[in-house]
């Protein structure tokens, strides 16, 4: 009954590229997308670096070919990434198979709403932005342009959101509710987010240093990434081609604090163990771990501790790619899922940029330059506020 789940399409837009091929070039050339802020209007423009998509809202609107003034940055990038994934997969939603769209976001339409928030109390001119504020708006737009969609939903669980969207897609296919799904997440930069993360004092004013002893915090990023996932039966029916298989996943709660992880990384450890158990793989059979690795003092120590507890002295090669993209919040898990598949397809382990000194308590050294070697299995971690911990395991086909 429980059929295999395959990834058949990838779509991604972030600071390192406007599509998957561009992203691969940046990753393989160790070219970070983090830099000065150009498009977002914020009082922190000159104080902080960010992983900003290198296109203005106007340029994004042109690419999407929709100049509806109600649309916001979130909707543009969600549609671009979803479109790329669907085209890449070659699925035709009018072929009678049941398709779902499961997206995720935390920012939603905040980027536009915050621009007009004060003004809306006085005049109605931009009242339309309220229509696109909801988390579900960009998901609906993806479903609208795809057509013939049987199920639409939006998850919002902070930084693990897209992982949970991917998991839900897998579950619905395995339970016979869908044949395939477009799954992922999106979050654009906004003043709201910048202000908020700054007030939690977890931003680094310089380029972030994941897993480094002297790390000071994260760099915010923005992006959208989607996968097309299909059950093996559906894939056979339409003669599609698999890029990778999703062999394990798990979700747990750290039950420690609203925004900090427990020192021993209990929730993280549980999520990794459960995902491994589901995959049937032993820890030593994991070739590469794409860490959540935000660069905050708290996360990297907690995640490192949890990882060591699971893998012991058989720690696989690992890296955090957030020094490339920044922390893209809800989108991060799907962006890193795309990166994990690229890793397996191209036999490359992408580096943990900006690393110098291992964390004293852990003595864990990530890969700091591109590694060319076969990668058959990848573990990808995403841990969100609210203690929401998710781990995904991918396997090469």
């Amino acid at each position, binding site marked *: 009954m429980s059929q295999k789940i395959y990834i058949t399409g990838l779509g991604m837009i972030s600071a390192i590229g406007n599509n998957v091929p561009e992203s691969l070039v940046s990753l393989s050339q160790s070219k970070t997308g983090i830099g000065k802020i150009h498009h977002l209007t914020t009082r922190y423009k000159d104080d902080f670096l960010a992983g900003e998509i290198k296109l203005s809202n106007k340029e994004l609107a042109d690419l999407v070919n929709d100049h509806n003034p109600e649309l916001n940055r979130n909707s543009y990038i969600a549609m671009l990434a979803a479109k790329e994934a669907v085209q890449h997969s070659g699925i035709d939603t009018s072929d009678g198979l049941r398709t779902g769209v499961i997206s995720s976001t935390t920012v939603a339409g905040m980027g536009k709403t915050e621009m007009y928030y004060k003004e809306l109390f006085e005049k109605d001119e931009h009242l339309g932005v309220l229509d696109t504020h909801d988390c579900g708006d960009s998901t609906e737009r993806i479903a609208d342009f795809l057509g013939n969609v049987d199920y639409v939903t939006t998850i919002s669980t902070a930084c693990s959101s897209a992982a949970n969207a991917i998991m839900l897609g897998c579950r619905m296919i395995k339970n016979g509710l869908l044949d395939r799904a477009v799954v992922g997440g999106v979050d654009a930069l906004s003043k709201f987010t910048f202000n908020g993360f700054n007030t939690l004092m977890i931003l680094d004013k310089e380029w972030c240093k994941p897993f480094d002893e002297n790390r000071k915090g994260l760099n915010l990023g923005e992006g959208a990434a989607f996968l097309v996932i299909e059950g093996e039966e559906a894939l056979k029916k339409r003669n599609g081609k698999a890029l990778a298989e999703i062999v394990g996943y798990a979700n747990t709660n750290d039950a420690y604090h609203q925004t900090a992880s427990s020192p021993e990384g209990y929730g993280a450890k549980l999520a990794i163990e459960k995902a491994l158990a589901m995959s049937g793989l032993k820890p030593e059979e994991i070739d590469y771990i794409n860490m959540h690795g935000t660069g905050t003092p708290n996360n990297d120590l907690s995640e490192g501790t949890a990882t060591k507890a699971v893998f012991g002295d058989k720690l696989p090669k690992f890296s955090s790619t957030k020094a490339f993209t920044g922390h893209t919040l809800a989108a991060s898990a799907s962006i890193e899922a795309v990166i994990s598949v690229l890793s397996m397809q191209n036999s490359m382990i992408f580096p943990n940029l900006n690393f110098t000194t291992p964390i004293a308590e852990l003595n864990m050294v990530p890969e700091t330059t591109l590694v060319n070697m076969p990668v058959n299995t990848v573990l990808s971690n995403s841990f969100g506020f609210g*203690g929401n911990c998710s781990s995904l395991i991918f396997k090469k086909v």
Partner: protein
Amino acid sequence: MRYITSYAHIKNNRVSVNGEILFTGTPSAGLPEFLTEAYKALAISYPKFHKMDSLCKLGIVCTEFALKGTNFLTQNPLDKIAIVMSNAASSLETDRHYQDTIKDKSNYFPSPAVFVYTLPNIVIGEIAIKYKTTGENAFFVAEKPDAGLLVNYTETVFQEGTQAAICGWIEVDGNSYEAFIFLAEISGNTNKNSNFKPLNQLTVTELYNKTIWTH
């Protein structure tokens, strides 16, 4: 077989548990005052409660009422208890509150304690922290209470090893609020009780719609 072993519904400043009104707050009280009254009525000591936003306070109060008098937390392993929640407004109420702390350049004091609550799933975090549950958790943003969504998802996690779940709808948007939480357990862990309804879309809808308040 999974059963709904307890449920609580909070609306119009009233708390009903398993179909009976257990607490009525001051009818004219706004949500913040009502939540304080309900917290006091529960007679629990949990100082962290006061730091939470309205969404989390409502979630904690409703969950606490649903758990009252049950053995839910002792008869189910804590790492096998899932939390599945949903609402329509996400964290909008707190988003507005946070926006207020940053919108005025001359009185600009962003509040970290408010920002922490600008995500809908923090209510799950607070429930997990209070009751120390480390199982699966998911938060869905949906247009309206959707029994099908909650039941389908909860059933799926049960199939993958979860033994009990705290599920529901917790919504706060301006003056409008509502909370409906039900506890679901596998039959093996429950005290045999023929009054327990099976977990499915029909029974969840039926329990949610039970009109116990006429005004």
